């Protein structure tokens, strides 16, 4: 069983530079948001180090702030991060079938949208050493940005902080919008989810539902509906 060499690790680190830069910007916003709800720098850094999931972490802040239930947090994380299951399943096909469980657990830690994107496109086999290089620098950027945001968030002018609040939404938009150009089903999913979300946010009674469960309900409704109406064929998936 070949787990790769140190040169594979270095190659992974080099390929992670763009991810590193992007992560600093996004996790900076997370650091600011987490300090806003009163989390300490250590708690923010720990959250980023243990979770490495932008959408999941941002959505958790609201629940933590409101002392929401553990069930709500667990279900929300499960739904929001469900896509990692598909990525993880796809990555498992790229690994040497003989690769041991320990290395599989190591690679699992770094399954994010961006790290997955780079790993799955890697030419030739995917070696654990390469993944570890990729994960190391990416996660370093993720935690570093969080710490900087959590510290600087308290000394930066309000007007600047106010604008940085847009960073995470900008990132979400950058992830979902490009695919709406070619794929009309994705376009419909995005538009319907936004419309439903607006209705849930403002309509009487519906606006009593917490934002966490609102996202869960909308995701399940829209994704299941889309899967029923417009099932994805293998070749359309890529």
């Amino acid at each position: 069983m070949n787990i790769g060499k140190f040169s594979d690790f270095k190659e992974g680190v080099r390929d992670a530079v763009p991810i590193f830069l992007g992560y600093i910007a996004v996790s900076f916003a997370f650091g600011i948001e987490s300090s806003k709800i009163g989390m300490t720098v250590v708690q923010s850094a720990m959250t980023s180090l243990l979770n490495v999931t932008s959408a999941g972490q941002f959505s958790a802040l609201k629940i933590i702030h409101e002392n929401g239930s553990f069930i709500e947090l667990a279900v929300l994380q499960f739904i929001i991060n469900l896509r990692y299951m598909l990525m993880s399943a796809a990555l498992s096909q790229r690994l040497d079938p003989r690769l041991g469980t320990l290395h599989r657990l190591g690679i699992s830690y770094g399954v994010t949208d961006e790290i997955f994107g780079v790993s799955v496109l890697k030419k030739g086999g995917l070696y654990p050493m390469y993944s570890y290089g990729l994960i190391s620098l990416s996660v370093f950027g993720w935690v570093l940005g969080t710490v900087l945001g959590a510290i600087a968030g308290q000394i930066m002018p309000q007007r600047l902080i106010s604008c940085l609040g847009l960073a995470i939404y900008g990132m979400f938009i950058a992830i979902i919008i490009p695919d709406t150009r070619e794929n009309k089903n994705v376009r419909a999913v995005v538009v319907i989810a936004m419309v439903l979300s607006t209705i849930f946010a403002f309509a009487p009674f519906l606006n009593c539902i917490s934002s966490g469960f609102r996202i869960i309900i909308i995701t399940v409704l829209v994704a299941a509906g889309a899967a029923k109406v417009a099932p994805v064929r293998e070749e359309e998936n890529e």
Partner: protein
Amino acid sequence: MNNVYAYILLMAVVTYAIRALPLTLIRKEIKSTFIRSFLYYVPYATLAAMTFPAILSATDSRFSAIAGFAVALILAFYKKSLLTVAGCACAAAFLVELFIR
């Protein structure tokens, strides 16, 4: 805000389990078209629902939020990188806030 560490650990365990289970257990490909399709659409539905209408109240002024949203949509439509889209959305909102105050 009493059990912050409990919240952090809980979400870490859930998120890690999601990542680790398929990589360690599932060696065969998922066959069900419905489940595959559902998982394919999940990120789009989730991120869209999280973004709108929340983005409208992400800044201190609705005008700067709308400006940032518009800039992000346009740049994302032209497939600019994550960093460019997020950065320019912030910059657009900042400029608008400078202007209106």
